[in-house]
């Protein structure tokens, strides 16, 4: 039996969920793009800014000491959220910032050269694809990819063939932001470790929905974004093993990451400060800590069960509607409650507009995953993604709206507009 989960109590924490769209209550199914923020997060940031705001790690004044403490406490809290030590957690501007840091730093370090290979998947978000393309182009390394099968799963046979002596980096998403499928991290890590390749995990879509223990996962580096885990924009984190972070030079440089600077050269601090040039997003770090603390106040097993039930309801509901094709339609994988689909005969943009008129907010387009859409023979899809505050009734409202799409646009069995 799934434990009781009080979704109404959770919803009460989100001011925006009271919004109406066109006379309908907002049904926010776009958390995969960006999550909404609970009041505790908004309050924590505002409280910081009204009481303690000042430059951290500098200056002896009382506000600075308080701000520094809150900032470093935030690092401890967020590190703990992914099972890590604070020294292993680097603040970034977001997942994209973190992935560029890693690829850029490997480039500056001269860690790749002609003949080397970087392996990604066909299911990459552009953020975990283009930085590697650029790195490959600059170093002469070759970029290869693990194909996605028709059901959305990674082709692990191909992966075993691809990952070899020449492989220096294996980068992959924990959860695809289109398919919602949880990828086999342990297997990919085993393949990569066998050849001594560095593993980089894009945990953007897993961090809000799965319990993470990054050190135990076996990967070397991982990134996620604050704004997708009920936290603020403008902040994210890069986690790395001590010796891996230690081996990387800085990607960006400036204040607060140095020991001694002359006009000609600079000496850098150890990680994580080495990677944190300039004024950090201080109030955002405090707010992100509040977000993961807020998450932690809930029975997470129950929350996960709740989200799993939403996932099932959503996917089965979609399957039962005529003319709907799911991207990545498999029961074999663990999933999060995120699903992309196409409505045959109606462009995704039009579907989105129709759903919006019922108050249902979904994402339409390629979701920053053009290669994956091409793989499925489409240029755009509709994506619905739930969150901890989503209700079963909202999924039903969504499904009901989707059922009306083809009729409204006069395609399929329904023929002309109903």
């Amino acid at each position, binding site marked *: 039996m799934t434990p009781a989960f009080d979704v109404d109590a959770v919803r009460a924490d989100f001011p925006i969920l009271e919004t109406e769209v*066109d006379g309908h209550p907002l049904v926010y199914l776009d958390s995969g793009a960006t999550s909404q923020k609970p009041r505790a997060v908004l309050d924590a940031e505002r409280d910081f800014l009204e009481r303690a705001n000042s430059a951290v790690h500098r200056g002896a004044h009382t506000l600075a000491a308080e701000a520094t403490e809150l900032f470093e406490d935030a690092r401890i809290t967020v590190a703990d959220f992914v099972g890590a030590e604070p020294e292993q957690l680097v603040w970034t501007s977001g997942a994209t910032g973190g992935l560029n840091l890693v690829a850029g730093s490997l480039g500056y370090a001269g860690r790749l050269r002609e003949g080397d290979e970087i392996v990604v998947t066909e299911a990459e978000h552009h953020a975990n694809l283009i930085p590697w393309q650029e790195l490959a182009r600059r170093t002469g390394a070759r970029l290869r990819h693990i194909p996605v099968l028709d059901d959305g799963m990674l082709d692990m046979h191909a992966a075993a063939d691809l990952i070899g002596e020449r492989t220096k980096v294996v980068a992959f998403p924990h959860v695809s932001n289109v398919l919602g499928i949880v990828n086999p991290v342990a297997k990919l890590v085993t393949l990569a470790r066998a050849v001594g390749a560095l593993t980089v995990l894009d945990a953007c879509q897993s961090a809000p929905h799965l319990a993470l223990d990054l050190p135990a996962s076996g990967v070397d580096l991982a990134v996620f974004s604050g704004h997708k885990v009920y936290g603020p924009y403008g902040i994210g984190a890069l986690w790395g093993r001590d010796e891996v972070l230690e081996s990387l030079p800085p990607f960006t440089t400036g204040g607060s990451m140095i020991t001694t600077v002359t006009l000609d050269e600079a000496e850098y601090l150890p990680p994580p400060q080495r990677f944190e040039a300039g004024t950090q997003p201080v109030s955002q770090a405090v707010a992100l800590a509040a977000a993961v603390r807020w998450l932690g106040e809930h029975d997470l097993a129950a929350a996960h069960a709740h989200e799993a039930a939403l996932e099932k309801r959503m996917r089965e509901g979609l399957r039962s509607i005529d003319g709907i094709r799911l991207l990545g339609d498999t029961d074999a994988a663990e999933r999060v409650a995120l699903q992309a689909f196409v409505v045959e005969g*109606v*462009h*995704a*943009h*039009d579907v989105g*507009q*129709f759903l919006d*008129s019922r108050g249902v907010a979904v994402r*339409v*387009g*390629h979701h920053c995953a*053009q290669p994956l859409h091409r793989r499925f023979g489409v*240029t*755009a899809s509709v994506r619905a993604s739930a969150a901890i505050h989503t209700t079963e009734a909202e999924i039903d409202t969504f499904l009901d709206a989707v059922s009306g799409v083809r009729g*409204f*646009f*006069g395609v399929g069995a329904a023929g002309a*507009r109903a």
Partner: protein
Amino acid sequence: MSGLESLYQELILDHAKNRRGFGLAEPGAHSATVHQRNPICGDEITLRVDVEGDRVASVTWEGAGCSISQSSASMLVALLQEDGGDEGMPTADVQVLIERFRESLRSRGKIPLDEETFADAAALSGVSKYTARVKCAMLAWVALEEGLRQA
């Protein structure tokens, strides 16, 4: 008429299904071919315009996208064909039309498109209240504008 129905009028859905000018004509002596893309939603169009003297002789296109972008292209062709007759519409007039179309779509519903001037395309008036869709409706028109610059 609900907001949605004013956005997706029957005429728009019809044009999206029966697209006027769809399929590129053979290039003429003074033709230009332009590719336009909306990077946000992936809508794209390839439009070919054939200019004879100071007149727009023909416009054909191919592309994929939402019903707004598809019908807008179709309506643009219909408008040029109907108003231009056999010789075609004067290039200068077409440029003015495009400018006025843009102005209306960016007006957030303040400047409707009149049927007198814009024929079927006047049905796109409703788009101007949906800022996210303005680019869809403009796609073919911007492509034509660019084509006239090149031809």
